[in-house]
């Protein structure tokens, strides 16, 4: 029986639950055994590296990992290489600076950020009939995801100098902080038009804050978690970038299967992303 270890950064958000769910689905079809591991929090990469080492001990047949920190996991990947265990990376398309990875499965976060940026510009344009408005950004804990997503978003917005980025504040991926920060920002910037959250949870918090203060602003998140899509459907969240984590999980296991079958596995497997708003939420799984 084939054993695969699927190591996530943490199981504290819906996202990795979804990737795990997709992976489990396919693994069960194949009759494989899937070990789903994750450290206690998304900052604990010491524990994550430890988990890779421990899985090498268990001599699993393949390791799929979404690194908390792509640089930090290289040593562990090299060890897996030495032990002859193939490594797959999911939810990232950034090449590790070392170690051999069979394939990367993920969406382009920067491109995702760009999509959100475009959506934001569109919203503001539809509101004012011209390119203007004020945007605030809610950042996650500093690191790769925040950098990429915010970076992509900014790439677009830089092209529209009339649209002002009035604030970029930390909310640590947390819904509560997203809410508190937005409440405060709405004080300082009463004519704020749009909040872009680097994750759904923060965007949802922002939306909640606006509602509680009786303000009408646009809110955009990234992830497309089921609860966020529901919020979009109910008009509580303006939009979210769906990145189809379940599909990502499925694709990861299928890639491993193809590898074992000796088929050609593309080095970069891109998963789709799509902006979900009131118009198209019904079509999203």
């Amino acid at each position, binding site marked *: 029986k084939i054993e695969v270890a699927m190591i996530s950064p943490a199981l504290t958000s819906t996202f990795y639950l979804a990737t795990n769910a997709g992976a489990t689905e396919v693994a069960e079809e194949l009759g494989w055994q899937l070990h789903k591991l994750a450290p206690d929090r998304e900052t604990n990469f010491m524990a994550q590296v430890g988990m890779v080492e421990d899985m090498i001990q268990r001599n699993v047949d393949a390791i799929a990992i979404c690194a908390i920190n792509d640089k930090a996991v290289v040593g562990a990947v090299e060890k897996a290489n030495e032990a002859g265990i193939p490594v797959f990376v999911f939810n990232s398309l950034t090449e590790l600076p070392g170690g051999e990875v069979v394939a990367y499965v993920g969406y382009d976060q920067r491109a995702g950020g760009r999509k959100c940026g475009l959506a934001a510009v569109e919203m503001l344009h539809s509101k004012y009939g011209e390119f203007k408005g004020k945007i605030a950004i809610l950042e996650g804990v500093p690191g790769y995801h925040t950098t990429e997503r915010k970076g992509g978003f900014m790439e677009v917005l830089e092209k529209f100098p009339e649209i002002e980025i009035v604030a970029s504040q930390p909310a640590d991926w947390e819904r509560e902080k997203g809410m508190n920060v937005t409440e405060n920002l709405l*004080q300082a910037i009463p004519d704020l038009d749009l909040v872009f959250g680097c994750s759904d949870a923060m965007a*949802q918090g922002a939306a909640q804050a606006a509602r509680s203060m009786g303000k009408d602003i646009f809110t955009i998140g990234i992830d497309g978690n089921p609860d966020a899509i529901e919020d979009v459907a109910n008009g509580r969240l303006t939009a979210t970038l769906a990145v189809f984590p379940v599909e990502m999980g499925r694709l990861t296991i299928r890639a491993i299967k193809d590898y074992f079958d000796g088929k050609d596995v593309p080095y970069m497997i891109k998963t789709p992303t799509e902006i979900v708003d009131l118009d198209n939420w019904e079509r999203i799984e």
Partner: protein
Amino acid sequence: MIKSSPRKLAPQRRLDSFRKELGALTGLILLCIVMSFASPYFLSLTNLMNVLRQSTLIGIVAAGMTMIIITGGIDLSVGSVLSLSSCLTAGMIIWYGWNVWLSVALGIIIGAVFGLLNGLLITQIPLPPFIATLGIMGVARGLAFVYTGGAPIYTFPKSFRYLGQGMIGPVPFPVILMLIIYVLFYILLKRTKLGRYTYAIGGNEEAAILSGIQVGKFKTVVYALTGALAALAGMILAARLDAATSVAGDGFELDVIAAVVIGGTSLSGGQGGVIGSLIGALIMGVVRNGLNLLLVSSHWQRVILGVIILVAVTVDVLRKRGVFVKSRG
């Protein structure tokens, strides 16, 4: 006849003790003055209400934490208990469709039970409070994850949301709740047996035992109360966010402890009071709000919050030192 030395007048002394509790108030007022000059948005009614609302969670739990710290203990588990009980309540309401208020009551009872567990570990084994609550912190957080599977539970009925989002006039309902809790805890500490014994235990546990105080019982009650408050804070948070999550309240315990200590309650036990803790919670709220209003970058916010904690407690210590100079090596 032995001449008794001149007795200082009672009223002045009482004022002293009051002033001691209000020590942090000066800090709060100063901070508010600075803020209102620094940002024109600060002094608006809605912003002040925001600050209050954002301080309620820390504030509510700080009331119980104050009592724990006065007994000479500490509780690291409040953040996890907050999360676990809000998740369980959310599950009852949303997954099982139970009556809202029954679920809330059960959630608070669950919080109290975890507090009780802390108390029993601390008094019956006895484990040091730091360790007992560190263990329970892991257990409660883990159970919250196990129960929810890591996904948020969301969309509450309106009645429940009132807990976090309701307004009474211009004042948010949770703020009213917090004030009521503070009135109750003030009376509890100053006017009841439990309160008096809380000070006695922190003042000298052995003497308290030998004075016939059931130290174990009273300590346990204090932890249970705090557990209940943490659960209540969990409800308010869930109601406010319209979602209960297993990651809520991560690092919350340190904020609460900081608020209590900024408020002048000493970690060595036996001294302090709840009014100071309320002020401490408000100070933390004003600082966070202010940093947002001033659009301070995320990285610097952490630095500044750290510095504020240090400065606030330093001022408190120096103020007290004015009264009693202790020699050191």
